[in-house]
C-alpha cells in the first residue's frame, strides 16, 4: 500500500501540509458548493430561470455542473483516485461516463419525442 498522497487540489493552486488537512479543505469546499446550490434553489434568480441553454434552464445547468464538480472531489480526494495509477483511474472513470452519456442521450431524446406525440397527436390523456 502506498502511503504517499498528492496534497494539492485545484490543479496545484491550493497545497495542503498533510492528508488530514486536505480532507478538511475538501469538506469546506464541498460545503460551500452545497450551500450555493441550496441558496440558488431557494431564491431561484430570475435571470437564471428565464434563460435556457440547449432546451434547459440555465439554473438547472448550474446545478448539474456543480454536482459533477462535487462528484469529482468526492471521487478524487475521498475515494483517493488522485493517488491511484492513471490506468486504474481511467478504467473506472471513463467506462461509466461513456455508457451513461449514451444512455442519457437516447432516453432523453426518446422522451422528448413521446412528449411531442402526446402534445400534437390525437391522444387525449388529460380528461
Amino acid at each position: 500500500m502506498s502511503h504517499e498522497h498528492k496534497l494539492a487540489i485545484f490543479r496545484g493552486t491550493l497545497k495542503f501540509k498533510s492528508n488530514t488537512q486536505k480532507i478538511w479543505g475538501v469538506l469546506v469546499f464541498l460545503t460551500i458548493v452545497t450551500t450555493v446550490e441550496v441558496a440558488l434553489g431557494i431564491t431561484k434568480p430570475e435571470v437564471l430561470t428565464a434563460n435556457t441553454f440547449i432546451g434547459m434552464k440555465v439554473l438547472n445547468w448550474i446545478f448539474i455542473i456543480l454536482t459533477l464538480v462535487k462528484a469529482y472531489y468526492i471521487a478524487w480526494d475521498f475515494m483517493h483516485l488522485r493517488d491511484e495509477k492513471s490506468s486504474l483511474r481511467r478504467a473506472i472513470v471513463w467506462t461509466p461516463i461513456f455508457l451513461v452519456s449514451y444512455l442519457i442521450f437516447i432516453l432523453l431524446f426518446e422522451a422528448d419525442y413521446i412528449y411531442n406525440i402526446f402534445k400534437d397527436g390525437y391522444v387525449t390523456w388529460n380528461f
Partner: protein
Amino acid sequence: MDSTITTGTEENVWGGGNRPLGASYGKLMMWFFIVSDALTFSGFLASYGFSRFKFIETWPIADQVFTHVPFVHGNFPMYYVAFMTFILIMSSVTMVLAVDAGHRMMKNRVILYMFLTIIGGAIFVGSQAWEWATFIKGDYGALETKGGRILQFVKADSGERAALADFSKTIPGERVGHEKKNGVWYYEETPLPSYSLNEVTEGFMANPNILIQTETITEEGEKTLLTREESLAKIKDAKLVVEGANLIRNEYGSRLFADFFFFITGFHGFHVFSGVMINIIIFFNIILGTYEKRGHYEMVEKVGLYWHFVDLVWVFVFTFFYLV
C-alpha cells in the same frame, strides 16, 4: 527455456508479478462493484429523466413537495435535505479520516472515526425514513380526475395551498370504512380518505375563496391556477380524493414521481443501511484488533470506498430529485 526463470522478471511484462493497476485484489474488486453499481443507479436516474421529459409540462415541482423540517411548522423547502446531504458528506469525511488513521496504524483514532461514521449514517437513514413518512402521509390532500390528473386547492386571497380540512363540509351519514370487527363477510378495503369526494365538492362549491391548481406548468415555471369559473367547471371531472402518496397515486401530481421517489431513494437508502451494517462489522473487527494483527487497515479502506460511493450517489439523487 529455463533461462527465463531467473532474476529480472519484474522487468518483463509477461513474467508475472506485474501490477498494471497498482491496486490489491480486494480494492480492485470493490472498484469493479462500485462501477457496476454506479451504472445501475445511472440507469434508474436516466429512466427518471425519461419520465420527466415525457411529462415535462406536468411534473411536480420539488419545492412544493418537500417543504417540511422535523419539529418545525411552516414552509421550508429543501433545508432538511440540505442538512441530510451535509450529514452524509460529513460522515464521508470521518471515513476518510479513519482510512488515514489506519494508514498510520493508530487503532484508537480509527475506532473513533468509524464510530462517528456509523452515527452519521444512522442519522441519514433516520432522516430518510422521516422524509418517506412525511411524503406518504401527505400534506394538503387533492382530487384525482378520471384521466388520473391531480387537482390541488389554493386559497384565492393569500395564494397559499388549502388543505382539504380547510374547506370540506362534514356531511353526516356518509359511508364509513368497513372493519373486520363489524362483519362476518369481511372484505379487505383500503382506508377511506378523511373526506369523501362529495364532502370536498360541497365544501368547494360553498367556499368562493378556494381555487383549483392543475398540474400543468406555466411559462413562468409555476403550476397553473384556474379562475373560480374554470375551477367550478374543473371539479366536475374529479373522481377520487387522494391524501398522501403511494405507488398507485399521489396527491403531489404525476404518479411516476412518487414511484421513482420511492424506488430510487429507497434503493439508495438500502445502500446506506447496508453500508452502516458493514461499517459496524468492521468497527468491531477494529476493536478486536483484527487489522492490527494483520498489519494493515486495508479493509477499512475498502468499506470506505463503498461508503464514499453511497455519498457520491446521494449527491446526484439530491440534484435530480430536489434541485433540478
